């Protein structure tokens, strides 16, 4: 019942961007901590381990915020990683981590729940646990200490955080937060007896993984077994999946921040899951199957959301928005609604992130752009690899003619600039593949010059980082030097080309990301060292240094070669094998072998199921309004593959390829796939 506001307020005069810490967003609910007598309600502090600007727009966190506050037995507030200046002020003034809603100290809550959207935030998680005033290690916590839970994409391999977290949630949070609330509520009601007893109860909830209930047995470097400590603790933990997105029209009251954030607009999630099967894309693999939101609901959420928030920009989010069955009627509906009294037709901007690379998509983008009055911003395509051969390996089945068609159509419709996303350091990548990136960019500019002299293309190059639960989880990441070499190849090849700009991610950051992504429990000590060494905000280039990570690895006697650069074999027990997104390991291995053979796989949304394991295993299925692949969406369909088959592919036998080229490339931003998109 205590607010720290009077102690926080004087500190805010001393920090940059104090509006990060005041809350007061439109759409906040008044958190009622007294819902149950005697403080019996379960109080969640939902935490985003990066700055407010990045964390506030996070839809996952906002959804849980609403669902929990709607419950009779739960209350939720939010907190974000304080920037370095405030952290220093908090420490020197003895003020703990606080919620931005009512500025309560973290210790007023029962659960500190982190949303992990990437691995480089792990040191921030440690920082926030420490600022919250509880012991860093789970083993040292008592019944009165906060329960630390993580969720989000990176939680699919929470092993590197095993020392610090009490539980990880796999998959979608809408339902599981209620299950957790019920267990914690009963435990509080029964007098908060043993913390171990609580953790054991939590481990029985489907989708909840409690690391301390499992013992990892090693033989030298290798894991031989991960074994539950008790008979009633499940041997494997499956992810949670919401069957029908239409039942969860959240957030109903999207938060409107008072200060600028990265996505300062209304967001409506049009579908979840993606079955295009891009092999580098963890987001696609772990969110299967596809579940579309009913078109009518999308339209209502947008109409009401725009009115309530006062935004004049809406983003239709998903992993591939042009694949939404009803995309055209929905867009027409939004534009029609904007014409009604109180609509904002003259300034409305509709963003369609993560669009496919084809002319249909660009047509759609153009339609949205021409009809609304809003500004026209960049157009982004993500071919991801420089040659058709390599795109078959990664199953990003974009033909060169798809790309040129899209680009032609975009220039024709008046765009003058576009962005192309590529990964380098992909499995089997040769220098020809890498140089193909420069070639594609050149050709795109040449197409543009037919329409305008100002035509330009920005190539954004990320080093590939293999992720758990994908077919590439066995792949040895390219070394930092190799990644840099490949980036330099593209740099040299594009340097003198007018109209082509190149941007790239720091390969050093890709290495740290790779380490945290596929690490096991032993990496926890490395993360702790990096944190103690001051290595927070590792996603921020100015605060990242690989030296810290290398130093910590050396001190722990661990090697990057083993954790990052090494190819795994079929029978190795991977640190996350006891956790599953539903994909059978056999399927993933088979898909890996297909990848090495340069053979693509179809999109099971429109073609027969190939039994990856998700739908069959969980008894769920795709929810798609149209059984037919969208017009122009050739990628991932059977017809596409047939055409692809005509391209002669010669690959070395898979194994030899792996052994012979130890220094292939790697990149950090597999996650870049999620940001590739078109903004109209």
């Amino acid at each position, binding site marked *: 019942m205590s*607010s720290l*506001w*009077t102690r926080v*307020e*004087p500190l*805010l*005069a*001393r920090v940059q961007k*104090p*509006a990060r*810490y*005041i*809350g*007061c967003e*439109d759409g906040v609910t*008044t958190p009622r901590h007294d819902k149950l007598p005697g403080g019996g309600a379960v109080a969640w502090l939902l935490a985003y381990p990066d700055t407010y600007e990045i964390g506030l727009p996070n839809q996952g966190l906002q959804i849980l915020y609403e669902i929990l506050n709607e419950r009779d037995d739960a209350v939720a507030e939010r907190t974000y990683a304080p920037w370095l200046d405030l952290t220093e002020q908090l420490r020197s003034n003895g003020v703990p981590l606080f919620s931005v809603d*009512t*500025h309560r100290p973290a210790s007023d809550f029962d659960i500190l729940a982190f949303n992990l959207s990437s691995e480089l935030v792990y040191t921030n998680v440690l920082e926030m646990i420490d600022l919250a005033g509880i012991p860093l290690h789970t083993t040292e916590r008592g019944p009165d200490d906060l329960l630390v839970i993580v969720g989000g994409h990176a939680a699919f391999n929470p092993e590197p955080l095993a020392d610090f977290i009490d539980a990880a949630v796999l998959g979608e949070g809408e339902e599981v937060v209620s299950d957790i609330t019920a267990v914690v509520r009963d435990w509080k009601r029964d007098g908060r007896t043993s913390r171990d007893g609580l953790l054991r109860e939590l481990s029985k909830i489907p989708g909840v993984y409690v690391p301390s209930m499992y013992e990892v047995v090693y033989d030298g470097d290798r894991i031989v077994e991960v074994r539950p400590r008790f008979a009633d603790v499940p041997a494997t933990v499956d992810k949670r999946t919401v069957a029908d997105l239409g039942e969860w029209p959240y957030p109903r009251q999207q938060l*409107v921040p*008072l*200060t*600028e954030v990265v996505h*300062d607009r209304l967001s409506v999630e049009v579908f979840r899951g993606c079955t295009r099967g891009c092999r580098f894309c963890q987001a696609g693999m772990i969110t299967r199957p596809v579940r579309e939101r009913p078109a009518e609901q999308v339209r209502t959420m947008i109409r009401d959301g725009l*009115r*309530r*928030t*006062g*935004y*004049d920009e809406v983003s239709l989010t998903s992993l591939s928005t042009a694949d939404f069955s009803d995309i055209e009627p929905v867009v027409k509906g939004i534009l029609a609604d904007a014409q009604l*009294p*109180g609509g*904002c037709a*003259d*300034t409305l901007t509709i963003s369609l992130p993560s669009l496919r690379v084809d002319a249909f998509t660009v047509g759609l983008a153009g339609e949205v752009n021409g009809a609304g*009055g809003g*500004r026209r911003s960049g157009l982004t395509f993500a071919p991801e690899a420089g040659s058709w051969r390599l795109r078959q390996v990664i199953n990003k089945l974009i033909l060169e003619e798809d790309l040129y068609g899209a680009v032609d159509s975009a220039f024709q419709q008046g765009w003058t600039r576009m962005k192309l996303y590529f990964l380098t350091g992909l499995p089997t990548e040769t220098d020809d593949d890498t140089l193909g990136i420069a070639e594609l960019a050149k050709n795109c500019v040449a197409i543009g010059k037919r329409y305008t002299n100002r035509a330009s293309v920005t190539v954004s190059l990320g080093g590939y980082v293999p992720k758990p639960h994908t077919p590439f989880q066995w792949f040895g990441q390219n070394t930092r030097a190799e990644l840099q070499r490949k980036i330099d190849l593209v740099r040299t090849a594009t340097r003198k080309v007018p109209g082509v700009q190149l941007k790239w991610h720091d390969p050093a950051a890709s290495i740290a990301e790779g380490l945290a992504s596929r690490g096991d429990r032993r990496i926890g000590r490395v993360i702790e060292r990096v944190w103690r060494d001051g290595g927070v905000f590792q996603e921020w280039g100015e605060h990242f240094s690989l030296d810290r990570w290398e130093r910590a690895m050396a001190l722990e006697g661990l090697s990057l070669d083993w954790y990052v650069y090494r190819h795994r074999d079929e029978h190795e027990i991977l640190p996350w094998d006891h956790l599953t997104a539903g994909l059978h390991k056999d399927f993933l291995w088979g898909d890996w072998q297909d990848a090495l053979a340069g053979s693509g796989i179809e999109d099971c949304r429109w073609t027969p199921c190939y039994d990856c394991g998700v739908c069959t295993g969980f008894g769920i299925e795709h929810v798609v309004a149209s059984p037919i692949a969208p017009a122009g969406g050739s990628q991932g369909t059977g017809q596409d593959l047939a055409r692809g088959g005509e391209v002669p592919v010669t690959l070395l036998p898979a194994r030899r390829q792996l052994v012979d080229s130890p220094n292939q490339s790697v990149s950090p931003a597999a996650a870049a796939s999620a940001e590739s998109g078109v903004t109209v």
Partner: protein
Amino acid sequence: MKLRIRTTKLGKVRFTSHRDLARMWERAVRRIGMPVATSEGFTPRPRISFGLALPTGAESVAEYIDIDLREPLSDDRIVGLPAELTAALPTGIDVLIVAERDQRAGSLQEVVTSCTWQLWSPQLGSGHHHDACRLLEATTLELDRERKGKRSTDEVRPMILDLRVDLTPAGDRLIAELATVGRGLRPSELARLAYPDIDPLDVRVLRTHQWTDHDGNRRDVLPCELPQPTVVDASPVEVLA
């Protein structure tokens, strides 16, 4: 039709910036469907202009916003506008008065010649404020300051138009009238001169008036009844709301 609006900025929202305020207003006018005129050009922006920027962290009961409409509002709508806008703006920003602006009225930057501020701090007592008033006795006051990355030493005595101490319900406060013409003097800069022994970051400020000059007489840009009390501290109600 052109409107001039007076608002408060009180409580937690004081930590938002001038830029933030612009976005809040753009959303607020869209939310209530106000027919705001837009600028010409490739990216049309609503014609909303803000007066003298309030420093981030300062509070105010005298903020002004000019809005141009593309079509006139009915008298009824105008009467209800303060309440309507207040509901669409964040807590702490209350619309006090909405007036029609003369076509020939100058911009806020042009017409405002001085502002009145309250200064206080838990670390300051009545004696400090009375001592501060003695700055008026000086004939010259030099201040080292940095503006836009440039350091300079300026004569600032002429910028201090008046200093006095008022007893408010929250205790004594320094009341300062500072000129805004030329390079002006910020309340935080005054705090450095007035209270050399404490960190100016610990001095709270509240703007109570923006004055215009009419043939030597100063006048509020838009006079109005101030909300009571006009001294504000984050109240427990606001904090735990």
